[in-house]
């Protein structure tokens, strides 16, 4: 039964667990329960990816109503891959969570926190798995609403304004998406993605569909924080609780990128997006501008979380740059970096969480001599940071390789050079941490601290191990990404 209903169990498991969290008494059992659920979700995701690899795309008709009339789940290589990523980060972050949560969130709110976390996870998974355009919107809102709540739990009052601004911009984005879906529906009469894709062929010369495309693109770029629509992101990442930042930074924008890919390539088709709408004319400069502006801003940040947040904006630029080439290699680069960046950023933010747990600050000025005070965590941060720079033998290198190859294949030499220059900017901002941690003396009045507990170390190092291991064993990431890219460009859903 599990095999046949794999797609729905993937979503229902965390969804079912969320209300149960609220009911569990005594509350100390909530976390173990959530933990089991999250790892089971990961297991399902792995099974599903395996099934897709073995026997091709899976379709699941919800309510037993076949596709254009009912809602369909459609799992192909691309979304199985993204689902695995989201489930993996979810499980890892939840394993890491309890100490950090105890520190940053009031005791009696914790069960609700975990419930909201699970809802966020459900929302993200739901977005990825569905084959129905409107269903995307519904699950987008589930993840967004829970994210607003999770962000607002930060200790700093600025967490509240960050959450509010995200709510306003996120809702504008979602409403734009709603308008886009509405216009598409209007011209085709269907909401099913595959059905949309085939029916749009006949009407995609119409101005209505062009506008629908524009609105969807704008709405999604807002959600995925492409420069200059990234303004909600830095504050949200900076002031959210550590665990939330780690989870959201690694997954939320990535899922939006996935939706973007799905809409642009599967539904509208590359010919329409690139041939008619010339989306690359807009995407490429914006991605490059985002990479440079955000990297430059990151260099001057004094708050480590903020620094990483701007770095995220830059990294999203890389992903979108790859996509903007519209070639197989370019898409491979985008998809592979989507996965790789999630691993690295997840690890980095988990390290930051451990630092905050012990030092109670993430201001660079307070981290002098951290290499001596928290050697293991500092080293972890540096390792993950190297990945961000794109040093060989890390996943970052794999992404950069494909991106450069794509640029050169497309004949965009100057772009390749710009990408390389920008990775040096990453070197600068990561090195600010290195020099603070290893070259500044430990302040005299600094109290002795011990490393974060093992339960936090293990998940962090797991991500780092993946960020290095998958930089060598690339068939899992780049191999799948390449196949997914081929499918996307072939236009077949």
């Amino acid at each position, binding site marked *: 039964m599990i095999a046949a209903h794999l797609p729905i169990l993937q979503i229902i498991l965390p969804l079912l667990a969320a209300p149960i969290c609220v009911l569990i008494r005594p509350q100390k059992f909530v976390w173990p329960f959530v933990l089991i659920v999250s790892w089971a979700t990961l297991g399902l995701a792995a099974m599903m990816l395996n099934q897709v690899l073995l026997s091709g795309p899976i379709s699941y008709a919800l309510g037993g109503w076949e596709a254009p009339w009912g809602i369909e789940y459609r799992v192909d290589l691309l979304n199985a891959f993204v689902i695995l990523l989201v489930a993996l980060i979810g499980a890892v972050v939840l394993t890491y969570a309890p100490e950090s949560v105890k520190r940053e969130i009031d005791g009696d709110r914790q069960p609700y926190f975990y419930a909201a976390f699970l809802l966020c996870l459900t929302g993200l998974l739901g977005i990825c798995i569905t084959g129905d355009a409107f269903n995307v919107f519904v699950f987008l809102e589930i993840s967004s609403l829970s994210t607003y*709540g999770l962000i607002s739990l930060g200790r700093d009052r600025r967490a509240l304004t960050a959450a509010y601004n995200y709510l306003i911009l996120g809702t504008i984005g979602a409403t734009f998406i709603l308008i886009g879906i509405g216009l598409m529906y*209007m011209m085709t009469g269907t909401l099913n993605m595959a059905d949309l894709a085939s029916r749009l062929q006949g009407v995609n010369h119409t101005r209505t569909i062009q506008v629908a495309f524009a609105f969807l693109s704008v709405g999604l770029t807002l959600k995925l924080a492409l420069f200059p629509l990234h303004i909600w992101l830095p504050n949200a990442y900076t002031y959210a609780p550590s665990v939330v930042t780690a989870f959201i930074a690694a997954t939320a924008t990535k899922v939006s990128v996935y939706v973007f890919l799905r809409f642009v390539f599967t539904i509208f088709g590359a010919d329409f997006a690139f041939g008619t709408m010339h989306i690359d004319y807009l995407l490429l400069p914006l991605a490059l501008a985002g990479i440079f502006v955000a990297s430059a801003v990151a260099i001057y940040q004094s708050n480590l979380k903020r620094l990483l947040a701007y770095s995220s904006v830059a990294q999203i630029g890389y992903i979108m740059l790859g996509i903007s080439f519209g070639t197989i290699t370019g898409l491979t680069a985008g998809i592979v970096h989507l996965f790789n960046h999630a691993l690295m950023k997840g690890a980095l933010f988990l390290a930051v969480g451990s630092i905050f747990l012990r030092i109670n600050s993430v201001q660079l000025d307070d981290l002098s001599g951290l290499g001596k005070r928290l050697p293991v965590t500092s080293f972890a941060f540096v390792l993950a940071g190297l990945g961000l720079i794109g040093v060989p033998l890390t996943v970052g290198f794999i992404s950069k390789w494909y991106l450069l190859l794509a640029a050169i294949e497309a004949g965009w030499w100057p772009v390749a050079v710009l990408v390389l220059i920008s990775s040096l900017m990453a070197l600068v901002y990561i090195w600010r941490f290195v020099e603070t941690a290893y070259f500044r003396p430990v302040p005299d009045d600094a109290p002795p601290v011990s490393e974060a507990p093992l339960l936090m170390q293990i998940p962090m190092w797991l991500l780092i191990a993946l960020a290095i291991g998958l930089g060598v064993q690339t068939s899992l990431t780049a191999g799948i990404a390449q196949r997914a890219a081929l499918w996307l460009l072939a236009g077949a859903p």
Partner: protein
Amino acid sequence: MSNFISDISLQINLVDIVLLTILIVVAVAVIRVRDLFEAVVLLGIFSLLSACIFTTLDAVDVAFTEAAVGAGISTVLFLATLTLTAREEKAQYSHSWSGFIVCTLTGGALIYGTLDMPHFGDPDAPIHQHVAPRYIVESPEEIGVPNMVTSVLASYRGYDTLGETTVIFTAGLTVLLLLRRDRRSHNRIASPPTAETTDRRGSHVMHHAMVLRVMSKLFIPLILLFALYVQFHGDFGPGGGFQAGVIFAAAFVLYALIYGVEAAQRVAPPARVQVFVALGLLLYIGTGLASLFAGGNFLEYKVLAHEASHGEHIGILFIELGVGITVAAVIINTFFYFAGRGRA
């Protein structure tokens, strides 16, 4: 052109034009007024007018919901927020040119997009040719429910509705995360109401409003009854779990407004309400899982009974109940948190 401008449609068009014009006036007024209270009331009016338009456009279920939510719940929440924050928008009024340009561009793009749209009301539009015909033609047979909106909502796209219920649950949870007092200060709120705490909410005025108190005692049971009617009659007329939940909650909100939040909380203790928040959603998922165990797909109600349409009835009954429970509980809870939060 003469095809579809008949006398009747012209009449509807006229009603339409008038309503839409008023809507524009209201929308512009909302932008212009400085007093937030006025703005909120205008927003309520906007919702109510939209509900009217929905009715003229045959969307009775939507109209019902918009009236209950937009004009009702949303206004109550806005007003509750106003009492906790500030009533006036800041004095200086500055026109934002950048905002104006963005809006003009966005609006311009949309209008450009309308140029190739099928005309309003055109029965040949693609939207009426594909997918929907099955709902209209076959759903009364397949599902056995006259209200096609209910069929689509609860069965064909029942999964969207599960998502919708989850959204409600998420919102309830998020409000709780945001507005719940941590334990130390929580005790202060939960302490037995003294004269002072009751007075602060302004509810003492209501103590003397004898007429209201008596009338409400009369009305509240009726409202509850109506909620149950809407809940179970959704298959046949407009309405369903969501609307019923809102109305059910409205009874409690009314009670709280007149007798004070503390009194309402004695009737519906927040901890208990929270349990119902979760239970509603669990009921919905449970129904889906039941069909899974009965050998169908998730939410495939057909398998719940020997006869397909009977199964559909059972399934829809349970999921609507789930929706109703969660909606009512979330709204009651949300109201408690909004109203129970004193000025810090």
